[in-house]
Structures are given as structure tokens and as C-alpha cells.
């Protein structure tokens, strides 16, 4: 077990190094950070001097090596744009993104499962047709449009919910939460729905397909033959057996929800790491971009590691294979 984890950790470090390397190769094509750092009064000699000072004249592999050397010591530099330490910026933005990601994952899970079960149990009703059609819309409409649409309906026209920001946040010292105030909770609703819509339809379709599959199984027929109540069959037996793949997918998707909340955060001016990244890309804030990409790689690596460990613990066949490979 320990050897397995260590091996996976070693692989993870390689993954993160590769991510960093590719990022640095690409940064040169994003543009020139200096353009956004100096006013139009600056002389070319000043610009050259600043470029030298920031080490932007070095070839990318030198910049990369310097970045890795600093990153190993936990030092990610200072943001060019906001002039604050990058680690601090990301840590201060993280709570917003995590709250949003978990809220939308919860919405996706609850509604996805409920609607999935409903459409599986009543496959031929009108309501199912409507839900299935709407789910297609949910998958195919860009997040940006959904967000703007929700803002116009619920914030501008009906004026029920705020259109942007996080509302009133409470500072717990190490975590700024919006969940403790009413305006904070209200602010969470629209972005969380927007972000969850894609996952929701995914989970719903998955549950429905699995459920339809399971309902055809012999043990369900036997359960029916035994005269068990519908509720016991549908929820106690059928749903239970569909949940294994659903939980796996939801877990894995949590990583992408955190990573791809960029668009939703931008539309709703949600002050999380995604909007920090977008603002940084626009002005080529290399230290923030590099640290963010490393962070996202880290999130994926950790989630995958946990999933692997869980599989390892749950599935005895993997263990046999692991010992065999370890020989």
C-alpha cells in the first residue's frame, strides 16, 4: 500500500513538472507583461531595464528553472498586476471558489439524482420529455449565456437575487465565508446554478441510463415477484446499485468544477481563483498564471490519488495486480 502511494506521488511530481514546463513554454505567446506595467511616458531604456530586472530577457528554460527553484521553497513571487505575494492572493481567493464549487456540486448531485430517477421510473411521460429536452439545452448552451440569462431574469427583471459578487462575507481569520450572511447565501444561488448545470445534466443522464439498465436486471424482477413495495425496489435496490459510478464521476468532476469555474466567476464577478486567473491572463501576470496552473495540476493530482487509493482499498483485484507489478 505504502509503496503504491509513494509511486503515485512520484508520478504526480512528474505530472506537475510537465505542467509547469508546458506553461512556461506557452507564456511567451501570451504577450508582453511589460506592456501593462509601464505608462506611455516610459522610455525604451526604462522598459529594457524593467525587463532585465524581472528576468524576462532570459530564455524560457532559465525562467523555468528559476521558477521551479523558488516553487520548491514555496516561493511563487509577486503578482505583476496586484503587487502582492502570489501565494497570499491565491489563498485569499480560494474560499470563494471552494464554496461555489461545493454548492454547485451539491445542486448537481441532488437534482441530478432526483431527476435521473424520475425520468428512469417514468420514461414515457410528458414531464420526462420536457426534462430530457431541457437537459439537452443545459449541455449545449455555453455557461456564459446561461449566466447572463439568469442575471437578466432573476436580478434585473424580477430583482430577486443579486447579479454579482459574494455579498456580505464573514472573516473567520483563515477563511472568508459568504455562507453566514443572508446576502452571501443569496449571492451564491445564481453562480452555483450556472456552474452546476452541466454537471447536473451529466449526472441526471448517467443515473437515468444506469437505472434503466438496473431495472431490467433479474434481481429486480425477483424483488417484484416477491411482492416488495415499489419504494423498496426502486430506492433500496435499484438506486443503490446505480450510485457507484455516480459517486466516482461526481468526485472526479469536483476537480474540474474548481478548475473550470473561470467563466462562471467572470460572469458573476465572483472573487475566486478563476477570476483571478482571467484577470492575470489579460495582463500577462506570469507569476499568478504559473502558480494557478500549478495549483490546478495539484488539485487534479490529489483527487486522482485519492480515487486511486479508494479503488485500491475497495477493489481486491487491484491489490492482487499491485503485488504482481511490484515483484
Amino acid at each position: 500500500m505504502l509503496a503504491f502511494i509513494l509511486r503515485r506521488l512520484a508520478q504526480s511530481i512528474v505530472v506537475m513538472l510537465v505542467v509547469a514546463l508546458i506553461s512556461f513554454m506557452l507564456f511567451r505567446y501570451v504577450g508582453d507583461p511589460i506592456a501593462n506595467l509601464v505608462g506611455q511616458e516610459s522610455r525604451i531604456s526604462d522598459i529594457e531595464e524593467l525587463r532585465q530586472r524581472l528576468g524576462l530577457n532570459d530564455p524560457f528554460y532559465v525562467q523555468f528553472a528559476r521558477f521551479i527553484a523558488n516553487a520548491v521553497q514555496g516561493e511563487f513571487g509577486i503578482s505583476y498586476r496586484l503587487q502582492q505575494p502570489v501565494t497570499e492572493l491565491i489563498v485569499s481567493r480560494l474560499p470563494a471558489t471552494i464554496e461555489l464549487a461545493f454548492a454547485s456540486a451539491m445542486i448537481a448531485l441532488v437534482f441530478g439524482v432526483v431527476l435521473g430517477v424520475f425520468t428512469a421510473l417514468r420514461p414515457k411521460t410528458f414531464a420526462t420529455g420536457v426534462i430530457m429536452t431541457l437537459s439537452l439545452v443545459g449541455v449545449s448552451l455555453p455557461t456564459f449565456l446561461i449566466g447572463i440569462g439568469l442575471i437578466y431574469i432573476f436580478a434585473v427583471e424580477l430583482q430577486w437575487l443579486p447579479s454579482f459578487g459574494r455579498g456580505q462575507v464573514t472573516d473567520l481569520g483563515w477563511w472568508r465565508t459568504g455562507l453566514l450572511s443572508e446576502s452571501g447565501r443569496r449571492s451564491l444561488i445564481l453562480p452555483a446554478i450556472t456552474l452546476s448545470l452541466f454537471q447536473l445534466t451529466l449526472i441526471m443522464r448517467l443515473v437515468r441510463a444506469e437505472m434503466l439498465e438496473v431495472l431490467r436486471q433479474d434481481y429486480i424482477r425477483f424483488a417484484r415477484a416477491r411482492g416488495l413495495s415499489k419504494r423498496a425496489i426502486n430506492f433500496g435496490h435499484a438506486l443503490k446499485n446505480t450510485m457507484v459510478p455516480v459517486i466516482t464521476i461526481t468526485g472526479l468532476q469536483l476537480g474540474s468544477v474548481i478548475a473550470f469555474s473561470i467563466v462562471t466567476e467572470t460572469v458573476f464577478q465572483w472573487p475566486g481563483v478563476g477570476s483571478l486567473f482571467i484577470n492575470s491572463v489579460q495582463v500577462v501576470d506570469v507569476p499568478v498564471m504559473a502558480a494557478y496552473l500549478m495549483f490546478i495540476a495539484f488539485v487534479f493530482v490529489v483527487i486522482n490519488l485519492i480515487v486511486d487509493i479508494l479503488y485500491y482499498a475497495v477493489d481486491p483485484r487491484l491489490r492482487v495486480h499491485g503485488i504482481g507489478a511490484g515483484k
Partner: protein
Amino acid sequence: MRKLLLTASVIALGAVVTPASAETVRWARASDALTLDPHSQNQGVTHNFNHHIYETLLNRDVEGNLIPRLATEWYIKADDPTVWVFKLREGVKFHGGQDFTAEDVVFSLNRARSDKSNMRQLHADVADVIAVDDLTVEVKMSGPSPLYPNNITNTFIMDKGWSEEHDVVEVQDFGAGEDNYAVRNANGTGPYVLQSRQPDDRSVLAWFDGHWDEKPAVTEIIYLPIKEAATRVAALLSGEVDIVQDVPVQDIERLSSTAGVKVETGPENRIIYFGYKFGDAPLKSSNVTDKNPFNDAKVREAIELAVDREAIKRVVMRGQSVPAGVATPPFVNGWTPELDAFPAPDVAKAKALLAEAGYPDGFTVTLDTPNDRYVNDEAISQAIVGMLGQIGIKVTLASRPIAQHSPIILNSDTDFYLLGWGVPTFDSAYIFNDLVHTKDGKYGAYNVGLYSNPELDAKIQSLGTEVDLDKRNATIGEIWKVVKEDRVLLPIHNQVLAYAMKDNINLAVHPENQPLLNTVTYGE
């Protein structure tokens, strides 16, 4: 009945707790200030925010005139044309309670012209700053500098003692990974005190009751950067913000017709223009490989005749621009209506001129344009592609974000480009120095087309030290005449700024896009 009474008393209570004299304004912009350190970045949004916390010696009003702020008087010393004297306002306090004195001004000007400051170019001609007494400062220039006061409208004054106490005497060197107290904390003399700040999210400012000026109508400002234009406009429509400073042109009309909302528009001090490569060397992006078509005056005239500025205003800018015939905004010293006149488009004549120049079938060229810097920048360039296509010049459009466009501009690595130019000194010399003078040392940094005219260069240099203003203005006129005749640049229009706000708020558009919210008034 009882319920009714209760409702009435609640209403009465509401009226009591919100007196008209204490108003909070929620102010939304597209982006946040980058830093609170007043000398670290030379950037409009940052200056605009900091103007509320810090103050400058002089400022610009909404007409573009210089007005006193921390300095009450300023003049050239009688017996020495190289010295500017500033008389300071009495009884001014910093937010921390410190007295404002000449020492603070000396300290701040020196900090602003130090190596790591991005404001240093504006103070490049300063040789020394001396505190004569508590309320008089003399700035010694390296030569006569009649326009130095124009350069200091964004140079903020910090407290010397506070800066020393918090170790921020030097501007932050973020390249070296240094953190700096002044980036996140401020101690100015301005009308508002910083209460809290989360970058990219919200900042709260409250009125400073020790401020030297009258109490403003707005006593609290909540500053909300909202990056997405549609969200920003929605926030105003839903009543969650009171003022939106960056209104997209396509929303102006709709907002103006919305009840409860009004839009103020006014010209910005920024000219949008096209430039092209001069010199004999062939263009790198053209099918004409033995010479440079742009170097031919007839070709430049043909291009100007092909461009329909009014159509760009109408179609691309939806009426929100001021077409221009000269590469300077009307606010700037040296602008005249005669210079600003431009010819009506004449495609037939343009074609004839091209044929005369030896290009009856036109030629090809690549146009480099930014797509996220100026209002509808890419769309303007697309319009030009179509207009030049009518006379046979086939233009390929290369559109990039400003972060990629800037290096091309600074390295003169383009044949044909779009750029905008703001004129913070409100004087033509600022334009000539960077756009017209031969690219050489401290001159011509943005002379992307490498235009070179030694006669003009000499005149331009003379402007820097000429103290006789009439003579100086005559020279400016002569230079503009040549620049216009030579078609050194192809001016298109001046940008128009639009602020949208609740209709009981009065806030005029500031030509530098730096409105001060302590000037807001309420009522019809």
C-alpha cells in the same frame, strides 16, 4: 388599523435614519486599481482610485483646466526661469493626523522620480526639490520647463514620517519579490479614508472629517470592479450599483431610455489614429517588394480620401465618437478647428491618386490592431480594411490583445497599425515628442512609422525650453501644419466616454476619465 399605523411608523423611521447629507455611492468599473502605492504604477484606473485617498499639488477639472489642490499658487521664480515655486495649502492634515508640510512634498516628488517609480518620466527634467519654508517648495529643473505643472496632476503626496515608519521610502521592487506596506495601506490627505479593500472585489472609502475642503454629498464610496460588461450594466439596471463608469457603446442607447437611469457622455482626451511605415525600405507584409508605397505622399492622400470618418462614427461607434482631422484631442494646447477639418471621402479621386503613384491595382499590406484596448478598436480596423479595399489596397487584418500588440508597436515591427494616444499634459509637445520626433534616445518612443524630419525635430526640441508662450504656440502651429500636410498620422476620432448612473446623481464626464466622487451632487 393597527397594522397600518405600524407601517406608517416604519416609513417615518426610515426617513429619519437616512438623512440626505450622508450618502453611499456604489461605484462600478471594469477593473480594479492595481495598487495603493501612488508612485508605483502610471495607470489611469489606479490614479483615479488613488485620487480619492491621496491628493496632488494640482489637478484637472472637467474642462481640462489646471486647478489648485494641495498647492494654492504656482509660478516660475522671477529671477530664475528654471525654478518652479509652489505655495502650499495651510492646515492640511493626513488621515493619520500628521501635518502636511513642504517636507512631505519634497519627499514625495523625490520618491516619484526615483529609479523604481513608474512616474519618473514625468519628472525627468527635475534636478532638485527644495523646501524653502513650511509652505513653499521650489522645484529646480535642468533647464527652463514652462509646462512642468502639467506633469504633476497624478503625482500624489505621501507623508514623510509615515513612509519612514512603515519602511516604504522606496517604491516597491516587485521584480525582486519584495512586498511593500504602501501597496495595501494608504495615508493620504484626500477626502476619503480607506476602510477596507479586497482586490478585484470591493473597496470601501469613508469621508475624512479632517479634510480641508467642504463636506461632500457622498460620504461613503463602495468601489466595485465588475469585469464583464453585461454584468456591470445588469448591476445598474437591477439597482445594485449607482454609477457605472465603463459603459459599452452598444448599451448607451438602451440605458438612456431606461427609467431611473441616465447616461452622461463627453469626449475623452484620447485620439485614435492609424500610422504607417515611412522610409525607402520595402514593407515586409506587402506584395510591392522594391519600394515602400506609404512613403509616397500621393498614396497617403489616397488613403485619407478613402477613409470615411463619419461612417465609422455612425456604424462602428454608434454615434459615440468625435471624428478628427488632426492627431490631437480638442483639449490640447495647439488644437484649432482649421487643423481638425478633414476632407470628404472621395473614392474616385483616391483611385486616381493611387494610379498616379504607380499602383493602379493597389497593393497588399497587413494592418496590426489591438482588440481589447480602445473602444471597438478591432471593429474600426475592420471598417478601414473595407474602405481601403474599395480603392484596391488589400489589407490583411492582424488582430491581437494589447499585451501582444504593444511589443510590435515599441519595436516598430509593423507596416500599418492602429493606436490611441492620450495627452495627459494637455500640450501638443507631448504628442510631438513621442509620435513625430525622429525615434532617437528619449524622443520618438512611439514614432512607430519611423518618420524623420530634422527640421521638425529641431522645432520640437525648442518647445521644451521656450518660455515665451506666444512664440512657443507659433512654433506648435508650424509643426502641426507640416505634420498635417505630410500626413504623418491618419487620425480617425476622439473617443467618447460614457458614465451611466441613477438619475438623481450628477457626475460630469472627466476628459482624463478620472472623475472625483466628492464632486457628485444629488437632485435634478
